[in-house]
């Protein structure tokens, strides 16, 4: 049984049918990527999994439990952390307070160890722990959003466009950290427009177009697919 099973979900924004009968799965220990253009429904899919949006039909099961009707704040303690599009860190709170909020569902006695683990991945956050988060650079904010999510000790980490708006060097750094999280045993569901980088680290990937899955395969297969090369890899 897969860790995350998404079965035929349909999601609407008012009368707009944003997600059309999407099904996919993520197995424990995998890195799975959803790629697709703007508006294909990638973020909507993640938001439906984390409970911020509701699917009208279909089901989502995580580690054998149905997520239907479970409030977003309860999904976190089941083991899913979601780093949303645009990072959405708490701009007016300090770096450390953001990290504390990430550990909201966890018992207080494991905080010190978790925070050291996050700082080991992101030494720059440690340097800036007292700084107001809104004053961080884009790359640092992305790191904070990822570190904050890791504080909940997720089994599944969902990342929505972690490379968006970052310089090539920072993009490399972020992808290295994603690999490191994966190596430490976290399953990753990644949404990316940077198809090159994401397919290179993914075991499997799904291609979304207009709310539907149009193609699936291993990362390598998709990187060699003519269609993908043309549409997402720049020829």
């Amino acid at each position, binding site marked *: 049984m897969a860790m995350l099973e998404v079965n035929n979900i349909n999601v609407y924004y008012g009368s707009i049918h944003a997600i059309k009968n999407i099904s996919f799965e993520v197995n424990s220990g995998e890195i799975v990527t959803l790629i697709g253009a703007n508006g294909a429904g990638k973020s909507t899919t993640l938001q439906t999994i*984390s409970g911020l949006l509701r699917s009208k039909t279909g089901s989502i099961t995580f580690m054998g439990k149905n997520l239907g009707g479970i409030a977003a*704040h309860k999904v976190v303690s089941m083991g899913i952390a979601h780093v*949303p599009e645009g990072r959405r860190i*708490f*701009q007016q*709170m300090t770096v450390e*307070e953001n990290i504390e*909020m990430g550990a909201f*569902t966890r018992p207080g006695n494991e905080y010190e160890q978790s925070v050291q683990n996050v700082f080991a991945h992101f030494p720059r956050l440690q340097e800036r722990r007292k700084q107001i988060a809104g004053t961080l650079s884009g790359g640092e904010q992305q790191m904070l959003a990822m570190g*904050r999510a890791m504080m909940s000790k997720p089994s599944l980490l969902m990342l929505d466009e972690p490379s968006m708006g970052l310089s090539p060097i920072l993009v490399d750094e972020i992808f290295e950290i994603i690999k490191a999280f994966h190596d430490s045993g976290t399953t990753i569901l990644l949404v990316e427009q940077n198809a090159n980088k994401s397919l290179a680290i993914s075991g499997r990937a799904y291609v979304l177009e207009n709310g539907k899955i149009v193609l699936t395969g291993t990362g390598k297969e998709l990187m060699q697919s003519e269609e993908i090369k043309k549409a997402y890899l720049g020829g």
Partner: protein
Amino acid sequence: MEFLSYLISGLSLGSVYAIIALGYTMVYGIAKMLNFAHGDVIMVGGYISYIAVSYMGLPGWVSVIAAMVVCTVLGVLIEGLAYKPLRAATSLAVLITAIGVSYFLQNSALLIWGANFKTYPSVISGTLNLFDNRLSIPYVSMLTVVVCIVIMVGLTLFTSKTKMGKAMRACSEDKGAAQLMGINVNRTISVTFAIGSALAAIAGVLLCSSFPILKPTTGSMPGIKAFTAAVFGGIGSIPGAFLGGLLLGVIESFAKAYISTQLANTVVFAVLIIVLLVRPAGLLGKYVPEKV
């Protein structure tokens, strides 16, 4: 000496405004709504305290606790029954509902306690006389200022040090992201209303101790003034509400003393308009541009 006396009565009045404004501003900060029924919760607090002292013969401090308990329950009920179902509605719908709740409370009070004024029993009496009796400060004024400072410091510590307080700030910035952290947003909003309403009860008792006339519309004008104070200081900001409340009280007191009693409110609101023209976000408010 007269000046000092007006200043002290202004600070005392301003402290009451500040305590009410703190409730307004916290609810606005977290629920992003203007709870126009907040002033009427003050009135309920005043009546509860009045009943406890005058009819049941309880000591003053017990009546304060009784008022706080009743108002807390009332605040949570109002939020749960009237505002929570409108979480996804437009802000205008919520605003109109808040006005409706305000009238509901006023008219319920009219029905239960009648239209006649009640004379609030002085819970704290006596004055401190200084400078050969040329300056007398009522104890209630001093208590009001002290209570206000304690509340302001307490709230600042609560929101900066405790887990629940930080969760409130997180909700105030981004409810979606707060949910992704595992924060129960609905519960956080309920707690905010509970705190705001308990503060309203304290404000009700202090207000009635200084101005001992209790009627169903008692809370309405102080409510509007406190809302003004919150906007004046920068809505959503706790120190802003404190500063705004104190300034408003002092301006009102001086306007009454040196300009005209009838024009006092005109002066107060004129100052508000001028401040908002210069600083649209209020004295301590931050102007946060919308990110696209």
